[in-house]
């Protein structure tokens, strides 16, 4: 083996050159810091994925929590918005005079549900026999179809109740 070592003496001297190849000055000052940052970041990602695994269908919540975790300003803004929403809810609930407004303004002819009839509705709707009401008692009259026929809205049906 010694003879072999002697044969490679000039190569060994050349290989010394490799030992002088060094990274930029100060490179190792930040090395461990970078590794630890990546380890911590990996742990954060792992906890987030665990959350996503637990609440798979609610991945939106997981994303929101992740965003809140990453940006404290966003988190405080979100908390403030929640507080405002809560206050608004409390104030709204305690106001006694607050009555629900009708969705549509009805005119004088249609204010009474009892007086509701297909003829009181818009012509086209009444002609088609389309009525909308919560009143179960309607004036069921035959309406004219577009083809000049009288279409009864309902046909009287008589059921015979069998005697058991």
């Amino acid at each position, binding site marked *: *083996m010694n003879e*072999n070592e002697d*044969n*490679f003496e*000039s*190569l*060994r*001297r*050349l*290989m*010394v*050159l*490799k*030992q*002088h*190849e*060094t*990274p*930029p000055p100060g490179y*190792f000052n930040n*090395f*461990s810091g*970078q*590794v*630890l940052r*990546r*380890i*911590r970041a*990996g742990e954060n990602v792992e906890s987030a994925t665990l959350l996503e695994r637990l609440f798979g269908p609610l991945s939106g919540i997981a994303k929101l929590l992740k965003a809140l975790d990453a940006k404290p300003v966003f988190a405080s803004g979100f908390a403030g918005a929640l507080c405002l929403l809560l206050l608004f809810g409390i104030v709204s609930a305690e106001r006694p005079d607050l009555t629900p407004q009708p969705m549509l303004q009805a005119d004088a002819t249609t204010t009474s549900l009892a007086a509701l009839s297909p003829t009181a509705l818009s012509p086209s709707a009444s002609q088609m026999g389309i009525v909308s009401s919560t009143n179960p008692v309607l004036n069921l009259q035959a309406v004219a179809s577009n083809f000049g026929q009288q279409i009864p809205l309902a046909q009287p049906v008589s059921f015979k109740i069998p005697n058991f």
Partner: protein
Amino acid sequence: MLVQQARRGDLEAYDELIRRYQERIYATVYHMTANHEDANDLAQESFIKAYQALKSFKGGSSFYTWLYRIAVNKTINFLKQRKNRIHLSLNDLDFNTEHNPDLVALISEKTPHREVNLAELQEKLNAALLKLSEPHRLVVVLHDVQGMSHDEIAKIMECNIGTVRSRLFYARQQLQALLADYLK
């Protein structure tokens, strides 16, 4: 002690372990890849993987050997993927290079064919190393560049000492042939 603390999740202890081995791990990866950026990524990833796998470290070998094994396997896998896109990104030679007696002798003796300077020699040497297979390159790097013993290398490469010796011999022969113009 530090390993036990790091196993329990103590990052300060792990920071100490990184500082202890960072230069040797980086150097091994760098000499294997001949690329500073790749070496930086791979060395960092080796430490990260070691931290994540620390719980599975049984202590059958030293932490140092175990860590080396992770870095070496990671590097070899990377090199297999990189096979056809070799890009040298060599570190500068330090200020002591020109005063090293071995290198001074090598340059002043001048090869029969041409004069060389250190930078050119560095590039040729790295190119020749990259022509070796990964196991042969690793043995040369660990033994001739990093000064490890055959026994240490055998533990890292998980092979017997005879294999290390034969790989070293073959690798040196190949290098000598590749660098014949620059060797006396």
